[in-house]
């Protein structure tokens, strides 16, 4: 029996899909059987970021409607054999999801994988609600800016009231990833500090990911940034994936570590 984790954010464009792809791959690298599922029906992106877009034949909606078997629709990653992928439908929209069908699908996936990661659509509409409904845990991805924090706050509020686990009187585990942190901007006071964000949202910190130009290129290439050992964002995702697999990985304070080349040169002349 695996664990089902929903990746949510509230606001769009904060890096949910990137985080899902990298964590899925990171967990697979840790030799755990993992499947990532794109729940963003009508706007599927996860296939591109994983570099699997040309291999999608059947999608999630077809599986739920019984048009295809689950086995037929699941795509095995070429990069790591532990990583599997189930694509969203691109032609339908979020309203096609039904609680009963989602429950059945999630239960089936839970049987055969250690980790089931659901990439939620942005917003707090029905698509989001269906993603969180049967999840055991949620990873909330935020950017260090007020609008992202407020939307995440709203999403957590809904998670706490609509999740099946909460309705059964249990608690949904909630973990925070702060994405796209710029050490310089935090130090100059332009960006919110992680402490403040944790104070506002009051959930456990899973990890911090620094701003990294390599992420965009990695997404365009379809090779998640976690594969790039030199990338700071990739290293951050490796640490987070380790934590998700039960390893004790210390938090690295990326807000203080000053790694810019320019700053290093400046230091030499001081």
């Amino acid at each position, binding site marked *: 029996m695996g664990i089902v984790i929903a990746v949510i954010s509230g606001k769009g464009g904060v890096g949910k899909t990137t985080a899902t792809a990298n964590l899925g791959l990171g967990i697979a690298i840790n030799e755990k059987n993992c499947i990532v599922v794109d729940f963003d029906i009508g706007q599927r992106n996860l296939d591109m970021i994983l570099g699997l877009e040309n291999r999608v034949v059947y999608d999630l909606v077809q599986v739920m409607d019984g048009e295809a078997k689950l086995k037929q629709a699941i795509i095995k990653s070429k990069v790591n054999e532990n990583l599997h992928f189930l694509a969203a439908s691109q032609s339908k929209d979020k309203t096609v999801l039904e609680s009963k069908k989602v429950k059945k699908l999630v239960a089936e996936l839970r049987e055969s994988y250690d980790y089931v990661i659901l990439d939620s659509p942005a917003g707090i509409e029905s698509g989001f609600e269906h993603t969180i409904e049967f999840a055991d845990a949620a990873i909330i991805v935020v950017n260090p800016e*007020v609008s992202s*924090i*407020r*939307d995440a*706050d*709203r999403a*957590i*509020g*809904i998670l*706490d009231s609509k999740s099946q686990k909460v309705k059964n009187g249990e608690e949904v585990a909630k973990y925070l990833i702060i994405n796209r942190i710029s050490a310089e901007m935090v130090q100059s006071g332009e960006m919110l500090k992680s402490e403040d964000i944790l*104070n*506002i949202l*009051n959930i456990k910190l899973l990890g911090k990911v620094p701003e990294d130009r390599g992420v965009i290129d990695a997404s365009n290439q379809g090779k998640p940034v976690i594969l790039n050992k030199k990338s700071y964002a990739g290293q951050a995702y490796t640490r987070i994936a380790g934590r998700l697999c039960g390893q004790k990985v210390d938090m690295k304070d990326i807000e203080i570590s000053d790694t810019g080349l320019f700053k290093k040169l400046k230091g030499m002349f001081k």
Partner: protein
Amino acid sequence: MKSKQYSVKVFETTITDEEKFIKFFDTNYALFKDHLILIQGTLSKDIRAYLTKKPLIFLHNKTVPIGRSRKALESELNIQKIENDVNQQIAQEEIKKLSTRLQNNLTVLDRIIRSGQELDIEGDLLLLNRVNSGATIHTTGNLIITQVVEGALRCDGNFMMITASPKANVIFHGVEVDNNLLADKLNRVELKKNQILITPVIKKEINWEL
């Protein structure tokens, strides 16, 4: 105290013809000796002497309580009972109202009020957690929040004890309170003589780092 309770038969009359009166009492003495004679109107010396001599017990120009039938008594008791019940209910309601005014109906919460959540509280609220930006709280009674408020508050009670960030929107009795006056660690906002009074309860800690 020793006491007895019993009913007495009363014969009430007014004397118009004294001779007739004496004759009537002479013939019916056997009946009247067990009665209390009540004479209304004039009572001459002769009659008084006659009654005393007989002897008959009498009263002159007095009103005596007249007993009522069982049915009448019961209905009166019933009415009294209903009145009692109503009075008790009124009293209870008054106490309830008073307790609302005393604000005993306190709600205590220890959870973050997140963006999009709305609380509507009848009575007082003690909140031991944050109010995040985008959340709304309305209380009819007093409001105490021990952590930072970044959302919207509407309080119609006697007082508030809060810390508000510059982002908050605080309305007390329909008047918007200036956030700059709520910057201390805990501030009391109260209504006195139609004026809103704000006093810092706990001052802001000085941050020596800067």
